[in-house]
């Protein structure tokens, strides 16, 4: 097992948002994290990359056990080196070109030589179909293009796993498809991914596993086939039904 997460707790202002989340991820898994708004999905993902510090919880990543509440700087750096994070609102560096957005971490943090960083970046941008806009600034791109650059920025780190937090939620409907198809392609290439999403088609057809959260608990987890075809919990059935109804 690549990633084993146990008993993650997190409170904000005395209110417990995560009440003991478990998740096991194997290499090549695509896990869709589903749940109603406010159920703690974003918080959970952020705890895994130390953008929030969990109050409690243990993560075993490639055999290394890390206390999520008391990780050292070196441990945090090591985890971040093996992971990439794609945000809902892209968070591209607005003063940097597309190419610089992708190379910055490589040259500054990983000390790659400039031309090698450039090669890696161009390859990553090719994978998301953005290699023809190397010199554009984020402000000159559509949301879908920005999100694809953000994915390339993550890919360039050669991560073992990519976390996506609602990568298409900020996009106009006509731009969602281009980002989802990049993600689908990554999934087919065997990339391990954790995806918080409201895109049920993606969860159903692309992801291999589902983690359904509500109120800070895991209500149900399993293969996505099981989850969508034979949901065990009443809450899961209700959730699937409301989502499908909301779409018609």
């Amino acid at each position, binding site marked *: 097992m690549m990633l084993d997460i146990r008993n993650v707790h997190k409170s904000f202002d005395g209110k417990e948002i995560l009440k003991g989340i478990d998740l096991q991820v194997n290499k090549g898994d695509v896990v869709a994290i589903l749940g109603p708004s406010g159920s703690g999905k974003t918080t959970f993902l952020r705890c895994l990359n130390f953008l929030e510090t969990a109050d409690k919880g243990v993560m075993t990543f490639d055999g290394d056990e890390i206390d999520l509440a008391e990780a050292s700087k070196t441990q945090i750096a090591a985890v971040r080196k093996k992971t990439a994070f794609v945000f809902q609102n892209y968070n591209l*560096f607005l003063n940097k070109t597309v190419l610089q957005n992708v190379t910055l971490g490589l040259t500054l943090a990983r000390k790659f030589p400039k031309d090698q960083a450039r090669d890696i970046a161009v390859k990553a941008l090719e994978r998301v179909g953005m290699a023809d806009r190397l010199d554009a600034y984020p402000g000159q791109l559509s949301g879908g293009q920005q999100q694809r650059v953000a994915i390339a920025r993550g890919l360039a780190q050669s991560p073992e796993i990519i976390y996506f937090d609602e990568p298409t939620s900020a996009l106009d409907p006509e731009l969602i498809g281009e980002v989802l198809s990049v993600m689908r392609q990554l999934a087919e290439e065997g990339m391990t991914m954790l995806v918080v999403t409201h895109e049920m088609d993606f969860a159903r057809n692309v992801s291999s596993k589902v983690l359904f959260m509500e109120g800070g608990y895991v209500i149900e987890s399993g293969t996505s086939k099981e989850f969508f075809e034979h949901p065990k919990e009443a809450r899961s059935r209700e959730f699937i039904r409301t989502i499908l109804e909301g779409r018609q």
Partner: protein
Amino acid sequence: MAPQTTWQILVAAFPRLLSYGIRVTIPLAFLSFALGLVIAVIVAMIQYADVKGLRQLCRFYIWLIRGTPLLVQLYVVFYGLPSVGIMIDAFPAAVFVFAFNEGAYMAETMRGALESVSRGQMEAGYCVGLSYLQIMFHIVLPQAFRTAFPALSNSLISVVKGTSLAATITVMEMFRQAQVINGVYYRSLGLYAETAVIYLAFCTVITWLQHKGEKRLSAYGGNR
């Protein structure tokens, strides 16, 4: 000395005034501004990073400077401090006071500009392995400078004009020179208006540079 018309006096005074303007006023202003900007960036970064203890010190500095007149600050430093054994020459005293004075205002400008850069970019920076300072210097500060650029240009203009106060602590800058010439020829209106025109010319050049700078900075498009 042959009687001279006002016009002749003004024409004769012009190169002298301009020379003091270029040799003293401008260096005094730019030196003060540059030092003030360094102070402002440090003070703004301390507040942005919320460094305990130091943050209170920064607030105190800003409160003190903004709540007291520039002229009084000059007097305290130049005429007051010698009584406790701290003697500073007029020119460095002026630089010191102008820098700390404008620095307080620019610190507030920079603080606002830093806050305007989305925190998400900092998180994205962490996720690709950058350190806090790398993120500050490569991502946050460049954007903050861009946002602050018009306000900082205003500060520069304000410092250029403010240097005339240095005349009161014996710095032989352009305005003091105008006073000296006026002491000989008694052409207050003409000489001081002439001096005003030179200040106006300096500030016009700065404004022109500001517009050119803003055009260049806008190259990377709006923040979406």
